[in-house]
């Protein structure tokens, strides 16, 4: 992948990820969000946040399995969009559903478990967004940065549970999200288990060869 092709690929992700937000804003402007516009916007942005979280978590497995190392370029953009949609999700709830009332938002959040779980998901994404720059990666050091960014798993789990908890009866969609997430996280567990195993067996193997 040449430098300029990579730059173009970045642009592709950047633009396409903004398309749903643009259409949602356009539809809102045109009063075309249906019977319950606020709810529609909340649902749409929430769904997009989950989709982008899963896409972000898909990058590494896909990269390892396919050998396309260059796709790592998209992870930061996808992750930042996940944060952007989650933040929009919260702000629309705060602004239009709770009429910008901090007290009513906090009162509602304190009482509703699904809001607590959802807020947790958004909350842990804040440090991830803040430390997403190259300078911050350098400052933290790769190891610490990677450890911190495992919070993305927490955000995705919280997001899916938050969705599951407020569905009335039809849990098929949240379960679909949960299944995909389980596969993505399961793959990571398998990988780290395999790495630990090979790290343990390798020295023995070498000594055997020496003998």
């Amino acid at each position, binding site marked *: 992948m040449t430098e300029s092709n990579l730059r173009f690929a970045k642009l592709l992700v950047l633009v396409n990820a903004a398309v749903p937000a643009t259409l949602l804003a356009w539809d809102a402007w045109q009063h075309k969000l249906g*019977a*319950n516009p606020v709810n*529609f916007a909340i649902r749409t942005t929430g769904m997009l946040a989950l989709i982008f979280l899963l896409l972000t978590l898909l990058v590494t497995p896909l990269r390892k399995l396919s050998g396309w190392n260059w796709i790592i370029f998209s992870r930061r953009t996808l992750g930042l969009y996940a944060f952007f949609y989650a933040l929009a999700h919260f702000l629309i709830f705060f602004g239009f559903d709770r009429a910008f009332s901090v007290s009513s938002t906090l009162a509602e959040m304190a009482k509703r478990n699904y809001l607590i779980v959802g807020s947790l998901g958004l909350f842990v994404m804040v440090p991830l967004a803040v430390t997403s720059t190259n300078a911050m990666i350098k400052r933290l050091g790769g190891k610490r940065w990677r450890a911190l960014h495992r919070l993305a798993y927490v955000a995705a789990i919280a997001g899916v549970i938050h969705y599951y908890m407020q569905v009335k009866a039809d849990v098929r969609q949240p379960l679909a999200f949960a299944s995909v997430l389980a596969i993505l996280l399961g793959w990571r567990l398998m990988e780290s288990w395999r790495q630990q195993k090979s790290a343990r067996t390798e020295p023995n193997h070498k000594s055997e060869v020496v003998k």
Partner: protein
Amino acid sequence: MKEPNRISPREITPAATYFNRRTFLQTGILAASAVATGLVYRRLNHPAAGKVTTAKIEGLTSVATNGNEGFRVVGEAQTSLENITHYNNFYEFSTDKEEVAAKAANFETKGWQISVEGLVRKPRIFSLADFLKISPPEERIYRMRCVEAWSMVIPWAGFPLSRLLEAVEPTSDAKYVAFETLFDPKRMPGQRSGVLDWPYVEGLRLDEAMHPLTLLASGLYGRALPPQDGAPVRLVVPWKYGFKGIKSIVKIKLVAEQPPTTWNLAGPNEYGFYANVNPQVDHPRWSQATEQRIGESGRRPTLMFNGYEEQVGHLYAGMDLRVNF
């Protein structure tokens, strides 16, 4: 040594042209991918819209009223026909409120029958035409409060359930009325999923069923009920959460014991048999204190018994509404 390059300098595309072509190509790819993403978004996520073309109801009378009976809401705008018919909780077709209208569009009600049975002196299987002749259609403008904390104001057409009950003459053992929706997964595709136990069943206490506000509706906005709103006949109990208003009724049975009800079976801690609108008793997972009135911005406070306390409060005198939610 071999000559590395046999292409003559004249054949090489000039840099300016090359980069122009590249920019052109990239712009094309960018635009095409954005359009594709937009189309996917639109396909997966679109609010519903459309027209209603059901028949006009003949001889609809507007009940003269001073408003005290609760027969017509005053001072609150009616929800648009478009919104009433494109935002529906009707799991027999879809669990997506904005998808019900499209899924129900071809629902056929020809040959519809309604069986009225159980503890009555005159049980009878009505054809739809005979059923609608029980009493002349009246217009009633009611608030409709969904358990999901949104609401509408709907001009229904129908007649009081009490007229039907008077016609079939319940025996003295009858204490409750049980209702049942059509079960036909071919015509109601949502019934192929196990989201709820089918058929949908609902029930009322006999005094609730006899209350003058309790309506068997066959139309709205002066037209026959569109399929998505419960064609051909549905129940409307304006002081209760919307899920009590069972749709597409095929059976009405008078019984001695409290009958099972679908949402209560699905979530006994969340949906009670009574399901009276009550801003003081929250759903375990969300507040019932306020509601999103469809078509309005901002939320309004939810009223006790959905604003019908004066008319129905006495039915529940002495009852603990936290226990009997």
